[in-house]
């Protein structure tokens, strides 16, 4: 699974969550650059990502993600390879 694969899946999740097909995530995207991606939607996003990748982030990890790239790298590091 490449970083791009993960990024694509994150993009799909966020599009479905916010019902917004115009969303395009990059490794550099920050939460405040995406409309409606508020703190509540962020928790929902994290839940959906955990379900999608069959894993769980620690509470400190979730707070430390500076951009989408950080999430991608973390998933890449701990997710079981498929």
């Amino acid at each position: 699974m490449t970083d791009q694969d993960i990024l694509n899946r994150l993009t799909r999740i966020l599009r479905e969550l916010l019902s917004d097909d115009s969303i395009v995530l990059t490794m550099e995207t920050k939460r405040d650059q995406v409309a409606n991606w508020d703190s509540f939607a962020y928790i929902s996003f994290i839940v959906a990502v955990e379900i999608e990748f069959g894993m769980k982030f620690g509470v400190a990890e979730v707070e430390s993600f500076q951009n989408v790239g950080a999430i991608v790298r973390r998933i890449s590091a701990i997710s079981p390879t498929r």
Partner: protein
Amino acid sequence: MAQEASADRLEKLAALAQHRLGFLETIQLDRALGPACAESPQGFSSVRLAILASTTVDHLVPAIRVSGLRRRLLIDVHIGPYGQYRQQLLDAESPLHRLRPQIVLLSLTAREAIAAVPLTATAAEADAAIGRSIDELRMLWRKARETFHATVIQQTFLNIAEPLFGSYDRLVAGAPVQLIARLNERLLQAAAEDDVLLLDIARASERDGLDAWFDVTRWLQGKLEIAPQAAPVYGDLLARVIAAQRGLSKKCLVLDLDNTLWGGVIGDDGPDGIILGEGTGTGEAHLALQRYAKQLRERGVILAICSKNDLAVAEAVFRDHPEMLLRLTDIAAFVANWEDKAANLRRIAEQLNIGIESLVFVDDNPAERARIRESLPMVAVPELPADAAQYVRCLADAGYFESVAFTADDSRRGEQYAANASREGFLESSQSMDDFLRGLEMSVAFGPFHTVDLARVAQLIGKTNQFNPTTRRHSLEDVARFVATDGCLTLQFRLVDRFGDNGLVSVMILRPDPQAPDLIEIDTWVMSCRVFGRQLEREAMNIAVEAARRTGVRAFRADYIPTSKNGVVSELYSALGFTPAQEAPPHDGTTRWYLELSDYVPCSTHIARRPQ
């Protein structure tokens, strides 16, 4: 045109809601559903629900609405600002008051109630502290009822406390685990006394495991006490209670025989060859299903049999097999033949005079299940696991028969349906309908609602869909208010005949029109389908007219509001001598009727009057 399109769309969404949906799919379906409209399309009803919460509950809303949609309820959910549930309820200017909720759900964490109790508290001190929390809850319940006439649902407390002493925790009055346990005990007691409904997530979390319900990460991240992965179950449990309160629970359990009620095939294996009863695990598993069905019957669920068998062979098992728990007298409708089961289910619903959507069909054969799902999508068909040991759990977990009351009439229902079978036999042997009705030796007892009747009255109003010209649902609180309202006339009717007591089977609420003091409106009139065609509607109207005349009323006004289920009363008022109104009806499709009491000619019936 646009309306038709939206009704069509709603049907499609409701069909989607039947599927097992993932986290994101639930959110998407909820968004597609959009905000609830004031006017709900045919076949759907809208409910205004307010959740007063002391933790974050916003993430539960999609699952609540989707679970409602599954039961054709369009739930408009209002959530007050986080943790401000008291102010919301007490402040007449709050948005909550504009919503006028029909249902108020209190979803609270136990944390606040136990925070101030020291570990060293004596049992008396701990109880006093818990008592104060319960008193406050009761005040909130009262407030919600007085302000909105809403039905109150109280969520039980998740026991999220970590052990301090281990098993010894439950022996220490001030230990958090024990405090929450005690809080729940006292809550149950208060809810029973105050007739408040429960959303028992404490019990659900015991069954599923606390980890399925509580995720400490989510609590820390956003004060979510109910984990997002529990949302679908939560939504379903809540929608069940709301649906039960509105009379949408299932009423009849239809059971297959071979490999369902017993192991093996009676036609091939014979009475000695089927597997049933103590001695083998398989035999006990089938017996357990029988026992569960029998318990359901005791609480008022109607039992029916639908099997591909020879009737005589099938009935003989119920009569003669020593291990059988279910007996012929437990079964209200027994259908065993070689015809299509969909046709047989229709026949059962017809025979019992209940809607086909109130059936649950339990069959081990996947082909039969698929056939029913395909041809009768309104019938509930649990996906029975291959292992008979899991039958009871599968049936119980689905919550088809969720209830909001348990009355004396419920426990007698089984007998009443059995008595109905005797009446059917008597009907067949009677020369004419008139002979039959005379021979039944019927008598009616009647009077205003008594306090002891209120639960049954509210239940009958809540669950009657056919003989119900207005389909207005009134909660226990509403009913109590009618009784206390000046000029309101309430009547309840009990019908007895030579085969038994049918119990409280009809209810009428007549309320005065403030604009026309000599006019009284039939707000609600319901009758149990068990006594249709027995002339009770005529005798009830005779009684209502007499009662109204005594209070100086000049005329009755009555509306018939058609639904998909109440066609049986479309001609009720014209048959009773009412005349159609000159004015336009209040809504499209509604017909409005008047009866001048001075013109009323009492209907002749074969029903005698009996003192209460």
